């Protein structure tokens, strides 16, 4: 896996670990938020990619700075590495949707330290900086959260914004060049089926879009695919707004 900075301002950084080598499982991004010498992982990934993730992490942050992890929902590509992380970091704290706690313990590590996130959301501190848990229920899990860093204007959007891309893909939608609607249109083709099939409800989608449009977002970071930056954030929200998903398609 490769590591790249998403945002950097002094000792406050966001990293993305992306483009995993193992192709037999869905390609996932892992994000790290670093602040004042402490770090947390956002959706730390599946059991199978754990060695790559830890190795990539060790190249960009002080390994002992890891204090905890955030788990957006219960899926295996997100949380099945939990027992391995817990062996390496015996004291790390897991921020987990309250609804999924007892499910997630099934991955192992019965003793892991969990901190439940109630349905209405909440926040955590990393090195003195606040990360907000934004409810995104039914997108796609019935208890589901995203993470917003108001200072960095970075929004971790879990499965929303996901795209199924080829190996060797770029960190950014449209590559390194300036954001263009053409590059966005090309990219979003790889996101369409994912959203239609894995996002169950138009109503949930609408509620989420209304909430997220209130936030000032410079980078929208999905767990699969590439990051939407600048104008692409609004392009994505508009596109998602107009997309019919889930139950609305089957009826």
């Amino acid at each position, binding site marked *: 896996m490769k590591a790249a900075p998403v945002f950097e301002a002094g000792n406050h950084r966001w990293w993305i670990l992306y483009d995993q080598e193992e192709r037999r499982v869905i390609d996932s991004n892992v994000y790290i938020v670093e602040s004042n010498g402490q770090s947390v992982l956002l959706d730390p990934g599946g*059991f199978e990619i*754990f*060695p*790559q993730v*830890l*190795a*990539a992490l*060790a*190249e960009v*942050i*002080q*390994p*002992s700075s890891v204090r905890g992890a955030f788990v957006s929902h219960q899926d295996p590509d997100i949380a099945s590495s939990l*027992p*391995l992380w817990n*062996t*390496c*970091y015996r004291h790390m704290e897991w921020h987990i949707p309250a609804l999924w706690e007892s499910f997630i313990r099934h991955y*192992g590590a019965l003793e892991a330290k969990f901190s439940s996130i109630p349905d209405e959301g909440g926040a955590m501190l990393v090195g003195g900086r606040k990360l907000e848990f934004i409810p995104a229920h039914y997108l796609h899990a019935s208890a589901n959260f995203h993470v917003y860093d108001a200072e960095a204007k970075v929004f971790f959007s879990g499965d929303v914004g996901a795209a199924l891309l080829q190996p060797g893909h770029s960190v950014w939608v449209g590559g390194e060049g300036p954001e263009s609607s053409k590059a966005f249109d090309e990219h979003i083709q790889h996101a369409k089926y994912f959203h239609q099939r894995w996002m169950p409800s138009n109503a949930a989608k609408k509620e989420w879009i209304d909430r997220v449009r209130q936030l000032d977002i410079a980078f929208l970071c999905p767990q699969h695919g590439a990051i939407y930056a600048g104008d692409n954030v609004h392009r994505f929200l508009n596109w998602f707004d107009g997309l019919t998903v889930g139950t609305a398609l089957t009826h």
Partner: protein
Amino acid sequence: MDIQRIMRIMDASYRTCRTIEYALHEIDRRALNAMVLVKRHGNKLAGYGVVAQAFREQAAHLKEAAAPLQHSTAPLVRAHMHILQRRRNAELFCRIAENARCNARCADFVRQSEGSRQRGIAAEDADAVVILRELVQTVARLQEGIAEQEYVVTNGRIEAALSERSGAPLMRVSHEMGVAVATVRDAIWEYRSELEGVLHESSTGI
């Protein structure tokens, strides 16, 4: 091997790389500063200019030599984390074995697969030791580079002493450069002894 020991190695690698990065940057800046001083004093300090140039070149070479350090840690981490995954599976099977003690056929099956798992772990352990040896060699090469750099520092001190009357603060610059080089030397030395400790433990099978 103890997983916490690997975590400590990871931390030491990161710390060493950052220390080297920072110290090399310091050396480079100070050398560049010295070269500016030398230029400002016309031809009088040309001798020191040569030393300062050597410093910058050495620092660049060391930076190059230090680059694989971080990359060589990644395979080591991966190898040990694979071992961790296997152990995790092994633990589950141990539990099956305990539960199935009464059932002879089941116990037999568990014992066999246990054997193949242990062989798998032993093979990965051996791979990890090879990677560790390579890492130690990389570090040894870095140490040679540092020795050369220290030689340049000594030359710099002599040149600085010779041109002391020019009024340029070269003695101070040389001293600071010496400190930066010593920082790199100590960081690498410490890192190497940490690695060798792990290597010793791995090869003696503790």
